[in-house]
C-alpha cells in the first residue's frame, strides 16, 4: 500500500510551497513567485508567442531526432556486425563523443552559415555517436542461437528481421531514443540561442537580455511539460510493450 504521505502530488505541492516561500522572502525580480510565472505562461500562450516558438523548436527537435536515430541505428548495427571496421573506426567515435556540444554548434555555423541546415546538422552530429554506440552494443548482443534457429527453419529475411532481430534491438533503440530526447532538447536551445531568429532558445536569449526571469521560467515549464508528455505518452508505453514478455 502506498502511504498518503509520499503521494507524488504532495511532492509537487511541497516544491511549489518552497518556491513560493523563497520568493516571498526574497521579494526580488530574480525569483518571481509561482503565480506570476503561471500568469506569464497564460499570457504568452494566449498571444500565440509561446506556441509559435515552442512549435518551431519541437519541429527542429523532431527533424534532428529522426535524422540522428535513423543514421545512428544504421551505422551502429553495421559496426556491430563488422568487427574489423568497428575497431578501425572506434577512435573516431571516441573523438566525436568527447567534442563539446558548443564546439560542434559553433563550427557548424562557421562552416555552413547561420542556416537551418547548420542548426539541424549541429544537433545531429552531437547526438549521432550516442546512438551509434548504443545500437552497436545491441547488434553485438544478437543471439546467435536464435539466428541459427531462424535459418534452419527458413524464416527468410523479413521474418527473421521482424521476429528475431527487431525484438532484440528494440530495447536498445528505446534506450537511445530516451537519452536522445533528453540530450537533443538541451543542445537545441544552445543552437537557437547562437544562430536562429526564432524558437525557444532565441526567446530565452531575449528574456535574458531583458532580465525577464518570469518569462524564462514560464517557457521552461512549458517546454519541460511537453517533453514529459512525450516521454510518458510515447516512450514509456513503448518501453513497457518491449518488456511485456519478461518475467
Amino acid at each position, binding site marked *: 500500500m502506498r502511504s498518503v504521505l509520499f503521494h507524488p502530488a504532495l511532492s509537487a505541492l511541497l516544491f511549489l510551497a518552497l518556491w513560493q516561500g523563497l520568493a516571498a522572502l526574497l521579494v526580488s525580480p530574480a525569483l518571481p513567485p509561482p503565480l506570476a510565472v503561471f500568469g506569464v505562461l497564460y499570457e504568452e500562450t494566449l498571444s500565440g508567442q509561446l506556441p509559435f516558438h515552442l512549435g518551431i523548436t519541437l519541429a527542429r527537435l523532431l527533424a534532428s531526432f529522426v535524422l540522428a536515430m535513423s543514421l545512428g541505428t544504421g551505422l551502429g548495427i553495421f559496426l556491430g556486425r563488422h568487427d574489423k571496421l568497428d575497431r578501425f573506426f572506434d577512435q573516431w567515435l571516441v573523438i566525436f563523443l568527447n567534442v563539446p556540444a558548443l564546439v560542434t554548434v559553433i563550427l557548424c555555423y562557421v562552416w555552413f552559415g547561420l542556416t537551418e541546415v547548420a542548426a539541424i546538422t549541429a544537433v545531429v552530429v552531437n547526438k549521432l555517436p550516442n546512438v551509434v554506440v548504443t545500437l552497436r552494443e545491441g547488434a553485438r548482443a544478437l543471439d546467435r*542461437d*536464435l539466428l*541459427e*534457429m531462424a535459418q534452419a*527453419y527458413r524464416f527468410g529475411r523479413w521474418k527473421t528481421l521482424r521476429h528475431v532481430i527487431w*525484438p532484440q534491438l528494440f530495447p536498445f533503440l528505446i534506450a537511445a531514443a530516451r537519452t536522445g530526447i533528453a540530450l537533443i532538447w538541451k543542445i537545441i536551445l544552445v543552437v537557437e540561442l547562437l544562430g536562429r531568429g526564432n524558437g525557444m532558445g532565441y526567446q530565452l536569449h531575449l528574456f535574458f537580455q531583458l532580465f525577464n526571469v518570469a518569462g524564462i521560467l514560464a517557457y521552461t515549464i512549458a517546454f519541460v511539460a511537453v517533453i514529459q508528455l512525450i516521454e510518458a505518452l510515447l516512450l514509456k508505453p513503448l518501453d513497457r510493450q518491449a518488456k511485456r514478455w519478461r518475467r
Partner: protein
Amino acid sequence: MSRVEINIRKKAYPARHGLGEHVAIRDLHIELEAGEFVCLVGPSGCGKTTLLNIISGLDRQFDGSIGTGEGKAAPRMGYVFQNPRLLPWRTVRENIDLALPADEDGGDIGHLLEVMDLAQWQGQYPQKLSGGMSRRVALARAFAIRPTLLLMDEPFVSLDPPTARRIRQLLVNVWRERPHTVLFVTHDLREAITLADRLVFLSGPPATVLHQVAVDIPRDHRDDEAAVEAFRQRLAAEHPEIRALL
C-alpha cells in the same frame, strides 16, 4: 522423405591460440535412406553437433558435400537443437506458427499441442515454462512443420524419465504415421536402440564412422527393456572396437 548422402572429407576450426587447426570431422561418409531412422552414437565432444550443423546448411565451411535425394528441392527440415532456442518475446503458439512456411495454416497444431500436453500453455511466453516444457515446445515446433528430414541433437536430455519415454513414443508414432528421414544424435545407447532402424557409431574427435549396425528388434518389442539390453550385450560381444561407447 529425403535421401541424404553425407560426404565430409574434412571439417576444421582454427585453433584458439596461434597457428594450426582443430579437426572436428575427417573422412565421414553416411547415407540415410528415405524414411530411415538413424541414431548417431558417439562420445560427447566428438563433433556430432558440428555434423548436424553441416547437414542443416548452417555451417558451410567444410570440405565435402551433402546430397539430398529430392533433386534440386531442399528437404523440408526440422531441427531440434540441444537447447530449446525459443523466441522469448513470442508465445508458445507463435513460436510454433512462425516455423511454418508462409502458405500453411497449421491446421492440426491444436491436436499436436494436446498430445504433447502443451495446449494450456500456448498463450504463455517461454520464460514462464520449465526446462522440460520448453524442450517439448521445441519438439512440437519441429513436428509441426511436417519435416521430410528431421535432425535431433540430444533432444531428451534433462527431461525426467517418464516424460522422456512418453515423448520418445510420440516421436515414433509421428514418424510411423508420416514417414520422414530422422537423424538422431545421442550418447545414450539404450535410447538409440529403442528408436533407431540403424545405429552409426562415431569415434572422435575428429569424428569418423567406427561401425554401423541395423537394429533388428521388431518395432512392437522396442519397449521391452530385456530385448534392448540383450541387443546391447550382443553388440558388446561382437564388436569390441565400439565397447567404449556402450
